[in-house]
C-alpha cells in the first residue's frame, strides 16, 4: 500500500521540567493555551494524509492515554487502521532491560508484531516532544525523489549542545553524526525519520538479534557510512523543551505574530482534544493585553503578557502578568501573580501574591492552593 505510516515515541526523558512532568510524560504536557505537546506531531501526521499511527508509550502514560482516547479528535478512530496505543507491557517480558526504557530501537523490537502489520510502504518515526508544524508530505516526497535510504529532519537554528548533530555534505547527505559535543556544529536533529517499511523491519530485527537498543548509536552513528542518510533542513519554529526556562521562553514566543504564523498555519491546522467551552468573557473594567487566551475563561482582573488556558478564572482586582496558567486555574480577588507557571486546577487565594522572575519562573504543582 502506498503512503506512510506514523510511529510516535512517548517515553520519559531525563528532563528538568520539575513538577510539570510529575504526573505525565513529556508529550502530554500542556502547551500554547489549548494543546498537549503531542498534538503537534499527531496533527502533522494527519495533515500529511497519514491514516495509521502507532504511539509507543512508556512511563507515566495515564495522562497520555486519557488525552489520546480513541483518536477521534484527530480523525484517527477508524474501522481499519487509525490510532493504535502501544503501551509498556512488552518491556516486562523483555530480557535485558529489566522493564526500563533503554532506547527507541529496543522499543520498536518490543512491538515487532505491530511493525509486521504496517500496511504502508513508508514509515515516519517521530518523538512526541517536539512542537512544530511541518509538512511531512513534502518530507516524504523529497525522500522518494532523493533516493535516500533514510531522511532525517534537522534544523540549522541554534540548539543546545547535549543533542544529536548532523554534518551534511553539499548534496545533503549525512556524513557525520555527533552527540553531546562541546561546540555543536552542523544541523541539530529534530528526531523525525522517514524510511521504507522494509528497511525499518530489517534494522529492528538485526538490532534485536544483537541486543542493540539505541537508535542514535546503533543506527544513526553505526550506519552513517553504509546507509544513504540525508538531512531535510526544517528551519521553521521547532521547540524541543527540556527545562522549565525553555518551556517558559518557548511558550512566550507564541505572543510573537511571526511565530504564531509558523505554528498555526491554517492550511495545516493543529488538532486538539475538542471541548464545548463557551466563549471567554472579558469584563469592561480590566486591562487584558498582549496575551493568548483560550475559551471558557472568565477574565475580571487584569491580564498582561500571558498564556491563558481554557476555563481559567481571574477575579476582580487580581493581576496576572507574564504567566502561563493551565486549565481551570483560579486567581482570586486581589491576588497578584507574576512570572508563574500554574499547573491545572491551581487556586491563588484572595490577596495572595506570588512572583517568579523572567529568568526563573516559578512552577506551581497541579491542584495546589496558594
Amino acid at each position, binding site marked *: 500500500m502506498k503512503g506512510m505510516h506514523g510511529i510516535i515515541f512517548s517515553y520519559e526523558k531525563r528532563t528538568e521540567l520539575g513538577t510539570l512532568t510529575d504526573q505525565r510524560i513529556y508529550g502530554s504536557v500542556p502547551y*500554547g*493555551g*489549548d494543546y498537549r505537546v503531542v498534538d503537534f506531531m499527531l496533527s502533522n501526521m494527519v495533515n500529511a494524509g497519514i491514516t495509521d499511527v502507532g504511539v509507543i508509550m512508556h512511563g507515566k502514560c495515564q495522562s497520555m492515554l486519557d488525552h489520546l482516547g480513541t483518536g*477521534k479528535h484527530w480523525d484517527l478512530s477508524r474501522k481499519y487502521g487509525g490510532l493504535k496505543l502501544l503501551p509498556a507491557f512488552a518491556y516486562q517480558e523483555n530480557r535485558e532491560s529489566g522493564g526500563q526504557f533503554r532506547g527507541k530501537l529496543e522499543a520498536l523490537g518490543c512491538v515487532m508484531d505491530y511493525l509486521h502489520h504496517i500496511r504502508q510502504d513508508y514509515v515516519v518515526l517521530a518523538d512526541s516532544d517536539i512542537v512544530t508544524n511541518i509538512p511531512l508530505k513534502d518530507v516524504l516526497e523529497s525522500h522518494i525523489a532523493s533516493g535516500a535510504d533514510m531522511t532525517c529532519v534537522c534544523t540549522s537554528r541554534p540548539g543546545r549542545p547535549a543533542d544529536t548533530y548532523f554534518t551534511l555534505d553539499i548534496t545533503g547527505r549525512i556524513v557525520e553524526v555527533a552527540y553531546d559535543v562541546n561546540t555543536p556544529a552542523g544541523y541539530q536533529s529534530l528526531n523525525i525519520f522517514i524510511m521504507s517499511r522494509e528497511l525499518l523491519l530489517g534494522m529492528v530485527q538485526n538490532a534485536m538479534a544483537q541486543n542493540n537498543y539505541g537508535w542514535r548509536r546503533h543506527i544513526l552513528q553505526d550506519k552513517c557510512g553504509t546507509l544513504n542518510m540525508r538531512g531535510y533542513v526544517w528551519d521553521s519554529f521547532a521547540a524541543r523543551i527540556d527545562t522549565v526556562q525553555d518551556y517558559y521562553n518557548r511558550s512566550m514566543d507564541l*505572543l510573537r*505574530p511571526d511565530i*504564531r504564523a509558523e*505554528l*498555526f498555519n*491554517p492550511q495545516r*491546522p*493543529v*488538532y*486538539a482534544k*475538542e*471541548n*464545548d*467551552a*463557551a*466563549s*471567554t*468573557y*472579558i*469584563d*469592561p*473594567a*480590566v*486591562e*487584558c*493585553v*498582549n*496575551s*493568548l*487566551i*483560550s*475559551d*471558557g475563561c*472568565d477574565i475580571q482582573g487584569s491580564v498582561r503578557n500571558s*498564556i*491563558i488556558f481554557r476555563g481559567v478564572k481571574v477575579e476582580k482586582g487580581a493581576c496576572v502578568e507574564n504567566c502561563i496558567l493551565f486549565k481551570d486555574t483560579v486567581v482570586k480577588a486581589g491576588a497578584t501573580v507574576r512570572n508563574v507557571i500554574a499547573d491545572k486546577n491551581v487556586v491563588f487565594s484572595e490577596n495572595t501574591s506570588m512572583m517568579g522572575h523572567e529568568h526563573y519562573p516559578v512552577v506551581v504543582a497541579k491542584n495546589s492552593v496558594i
Partner: protein
Amino acid sequence: MKKECIAMLLAGGQGSRLYVLTGDMAKPAVPFGGKFRIIDFPLSNCANSGIDTVGVLTQYRPLELNQYVGNGQPWELDRRHGGVHILPPYQSATGAVWYKGTANAIYQNIGFVDLYDPDYVAILSGDHIYKMDYDRMLRLHKEKGAACTISVMEVPWEEASRFGIMAVDGEDNIVEFAEKPKEPKSNLASMGIYIFSWKKLREYLIADEANENSDNDFGKNIIPTMLNDGEKMVAYRFEGYWKDVGTLDSLWDANMDMLTPDSGLNLLDDSWPIRGRNEVCPPTYVGEKADIGNSAVARGCTLLGEVKNSVLSTGTSVGEGATVTYSVVMPGAVIEDGAQVHYAIVGENCRIGANAVVGAPPEQAEDPEQWGIAVLGPRTCVAAGEKVAPKTMLDKHHGEEAAR
C-alpha cells in the same frame, strides 16, 4: 429495536425574517453566541436529556445545515442504533411534495418514526435559544397520562397577546388555546415544544392530512383539534432563559444577553453544556494596544483594537485603531484597521475595510424613528472608508439594500 422517546426537530424554516443574514443557509445554521449555531441548543438539550435519536427536518437551503450536523458526533449523536438523521422531503410512488407545514413534515416521516417504534415523540423547533431537560417534561407527560404535553412559560401580561396563549385549569390541564389573543385569558405562552404519545399523534396526523382545508400546522390545526376532541393536554411550566431568535432584533438581543449575568443565559455554566462543532483554531490573541471590555470572545481571533459590549465569534479579527461596540460579529469576519462598527450584526466572513463605518449608536441618530441595527449578510465586503447607515442591510452582492 424500540426507543422510548425520539425527537423530531423542525429545521426547515426559511428564516425570512432574518433577511440577508441567513444568506445561503437555513435559519438553524445561523451562528450564535460566538462558538455555536442556533441548532446546537435543541441538539445539546436532546443529548443532555438522554434522547439519542433525532430526526432533523430540513428543506430550505439545507447544505450548510447538513454539513454542520454531519454524523452528529459533536452532540454524541453518532450511534450504532439511532443517532441524528437529516430528513429532507423525498419522492414516493405517488409523487413528491414539499413539506406543506410543520405537521405535514412529521406526517411525511411517519415511516422514519415507526422504525424506532417509540412510545413518545418530542417535537422541537430549530430557532430557540434555551437550556431545557426534556426528560423532566417527559416524566410529567407520563405521570399525567397525557396525549400531549406543551411546554409553556409565563410572559409579562402586556406581552401575552404576541404569543400562543394556553389557558389552564388548577391542575395545569390545558383548557383553551388562543393564537395571539387580543384579550389573553392567561399569561402562559407556548414555547413550541411538544411531547406527544406517538400512537395518538400518528392518528391525528393521518386525519389532518386527509382534511383538505387544513394548513397542516401544529399550532393552527393539530393542537386545536386535539383540544376540541377532549384529549388530555397538559402544560409543562418551564422556568429559565428562552428566546425565539427568529428576528434580527431578537437575535441581537439574545447575543447581548450573554454579556448580562442576570439575563439567565449563562453559557459558561457547564452543568448543562451546549455542545457544538468546533472550528480547529488556536487560542485568541489580544494585542498590546487592545481594549476589550464586557465582551464574549471565542477562539482564533486576533484583536488589536477596541471591543466593547460585543460578541466576537471564532476566527474574527479586529485591526489596530478599529472600534467595535454593541455588535455581534460572526465567524471569520475581518474588521480592518480604523474601522468603526456600532450596533451591528456582521455576518460570516464579511470584510469591513479600513476606516469604514458600519451602524451608529442610537444617541447619534438624527431621526430616532429611523434608527436600527445595521446588518451585513455573509461574505459582504464593505470598502475602505465606506459608510453603512444604521438600519441598513447589505448582502454580498452589495447595492441590494433592503429597508426592513
